[in-house]
């Protein structure tokens, strides 16, 4: 416990907190742990981190939590607002409660776990990160998702995977409508292995029965000169 650093947002600004996390934490010591107290819905907590530290945010937090995260492992013990782990590069971000819109938007790498529900546009334009949602996701999730995997243990809202590129979505519950060019495909043993691997990584029960695979039909990839020639 010697390496546990408590930082209290009731006593310091978010700017000072982030400056500390950027400049004062050891760059290569994975044993460093930081406890952030009294987040009280504040925005931009623990953004732009680049060290292997473990960061715990003790309470509900606001927008852009752990944005652009690199290598750090951030856990929020509560809910978060919009755009948690936005543009995550590596490391992990875990939300013990629910996440509002645009969770892990345009994430390049790393793992984002939302233990309860994520709202609309979860994984929008994701570019290689993995997202595991213990509950359901809202409408337009994985919109224009380019690479990476979205696992949803609950239901998915309307317009799932609209204009999808090469990201793959797995949903255990009900899909309330697929977006343009997204299609359901058969689950292969490779898909089951991938879902199992991500559920284990996320620390969620490895119940794989009922998962459906959604991927791009790739019909929007190319301009069809002959299609709809009504001009």
């Amino acid at each position, binding site marked *: 416990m010697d390496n546990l650093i408590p930082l209290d947002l009731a006593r310091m600004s978010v700017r000072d907190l982030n400056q500390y996390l950027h400049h004062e934490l050891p760059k290569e010591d994975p044993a460093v742990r930081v406890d952030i107290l009294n987040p*009280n*819905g*504040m*925005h931009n907590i623990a953004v732009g981190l680049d060290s292997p530290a473990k960061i715990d945010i003790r*309470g*509900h937090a*606001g*927008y852009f939590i752990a944005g652009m995260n690199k290598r750090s492992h951030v856990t929020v013990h509560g*809910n978060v*607002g*919009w755009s948690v782990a936005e543009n995550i590069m590596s490391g992990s971000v875990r939300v013990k409660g*629910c996440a*509002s*819109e645009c969770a892990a938007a345009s994430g390049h790498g790393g793992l984002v776990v939302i233990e309860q529900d994520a*709202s*609309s546009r979860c994984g929008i334009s994701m570019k290689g990160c993995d997202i595991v949602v213990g509950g359901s996701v*809202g*409408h*337009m999730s994985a919109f224009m998702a380019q690479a990476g995997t979205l696992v949803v243990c609950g239901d998915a809202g309307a317009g799932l995977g609209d204009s999808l590129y090469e990201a793959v979505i797995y949903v255990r519950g009900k899909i309330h409508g697929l977006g343009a060019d997204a299609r359901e495909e058969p689950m292969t043993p490779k898909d089951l292995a991938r879902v199992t691997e991500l559920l284990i990584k996320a620390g969620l029960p490895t119940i794989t029965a009922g998962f459906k695979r959604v991927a791009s039909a790739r019909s929007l990839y190319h301009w069809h000169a002959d299609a709809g020639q009504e001009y």
Partner: protein
Amino acid sequence: MCGIVGFMARDASVRSGLGELVVPMLTCMGERGPDSAGLAVFSDPLAGGLRRYSFYTADRNFDWTGFLSQFAAETGFSSEIEAIESHAILVSAADPATVQDWLSGRDDPVHLLSAGRTIDVYKDEGHPEQIARRYSFTGLQGTHAVGHTRMATESAVSPAHAHPFTAGEDFCLVHNGSLSNPYSIRRKLEKRGVRFETDNDTEAACRFLEWRMSEGDTLEQALEKGFDELDGFYTLLMATADKLVLVRDAFACKPAVVAETSAYVAISSEYRALAHLPGVKEARIFEPVPEQIYSWTI
């Protein structure tokens, strides 16, 4: 960007401290809307045939006592008035048409902000913190309240363009977002005799819903029609004499978060405006889903 806040005291003991709980919510949301702000506060209905009327005038040294005596002399209704600077609340047995007609015959620019048996409305230009201080919001008591902090995007910054908007009696609405068809709604309503006071998009939503209610719809039924009629982005928070009602547009473009405990229902654009509320850490906290009507009754 604008901020919305709403609060309903479920536990009667919370009512006396309503202002103290709501002011930090409004001030916090000043970061989303620093131009102007407003607050509607509802209290128990006045007995008998009495109604409450909220007025605003730009002149902070306005002679409200003279205003009251002229009102009594010219309408025949002896009434009471309570004034702070630009704002006054008149309690009178006069009906809204009488008050409106009397007001429109005067030269001084006094605007009627609200009418009803339960509602008082305050709105003004400036940072929400200043406005709350100017009108002593912390001392307000009541059953429920709806507030707004405005960052104007589509019409002028003025007290008249600030929210809440009201129409009819005991009804108000605040809006975060922008409507793309307020003028077509307005043209439809004006043909039916509905009068507008500003060119603000939110006023179109407010008057549309009140028009539906005057035609016999409940607010919930009016909102179902509103989902078809209102085009644009919106989180709308409304209040009537005994209800708070919240909706978000089909794309949920504008935020909202709700915290419910046995003592209160609190609504805001962002959780940080609720973080100071007693017991909020144990509250049921959720984000409203698109095109679903959330309604709480006292």
